[in-house]
């Protein structure tokens, strides 16, 4: 197993861990964190797989850079919505999970 493939596999493990946390936890902040871990895992799969056997590939790297910015924006938006939800309802989880 090359090191690039190993990175991709670590990304797979991160995806699995993120999914586990996302299902298990009901607190919205923990869910957001788990979702971000899943996202980081998919970025690692993308970059690791593309580098396997032929060195750095700028196209997936640019794709992942775009993805990171979108992930930052969506996480920030999710935090804004989450805190607004807490202000309105006093709950840090969704109504069906309480």
């Amino acid at each position, binding site marked *: 197993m090359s090191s690039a493939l190993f990175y991709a596999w670590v990304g797979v493990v991160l*995806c699995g861990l993120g999914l586990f946390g996302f299902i298990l936890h009901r607190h919205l902040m923990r869910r957001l964190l788990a979702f971000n871990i899943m996202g980081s895992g998919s970025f690692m799969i993308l970059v690791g797989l593309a580098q396997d056997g032929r060195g750095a590939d700028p*196209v997936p790297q*640019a*794709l992942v850079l775009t993805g990171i910015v979108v992930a930052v924006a*969506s996480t*920030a938006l999710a935090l*804004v919505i989450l805190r607004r939800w807490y202000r309105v309802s006093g709950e840090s989880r969704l109504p069906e999970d309480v």
Partner: protein
Amino acid sequence: MSRKLLAALLSLTVTLALSLALIDRPLPTEDLPARVGQAMQSSGVAHPVTAVLLNFRSYDTLLEVGVLLIAVVVALALREAQPDGPDRMGLDNPLLRAITAWLMPLMLMVSGYLLWAGSTRPGGAFQAGAVLAACGVLLRLCGTGLSWLEQPWRLRAGLALGPLVFLAAGTATMLAGASFLAYPEPLAGSLILFIELNLMVSIALALISLFRLAPPQSDSPHFADRRRSRRE
């Protein structure tokens, strides 16, 4: 079956399936690094990732800035009328202010350097914008605030600057007869730097305003009666 066991089973299955897919993956049919290497001559920059981001696949970058802008618009729509005084911003500490006064020029310099370095080495508008946004967040956390952002039209103009310049550059190439966002070769380098400069301002403002728009932490929820008496 308990929730924990079910979650563990599902995530293990997904991990195993993904691992199998990783082992049994199809080989790439196209040699993308070689194609990028061939086209580097006409891109106007020397770093392949910047060339892909702002020349070969600049459409992606344009839409990405659009996503950032949409996030800010939604956050603006969700904000509540709240006084935004220094007492709401966090730590108003003289030591923090003194350190910030030392750090701020350095951070601005790093941001400018990252923007400039993007054409030849890792760096570019997003990294520079992130450092610039960190400046804004730091200023806000030490209670200095960003009073010039209080004017709504200034914030909106700054947010729209990057996407508008990007769109204008793309449309100008269409007027010149090329396709959308296909920069002419002799101008590509300076055009990319100019677009990146404006993008940096918009990205930094978007990140700062997303940080500002989150409701402050210190106060309790509006509707205390809706709160559950039992806390798990």
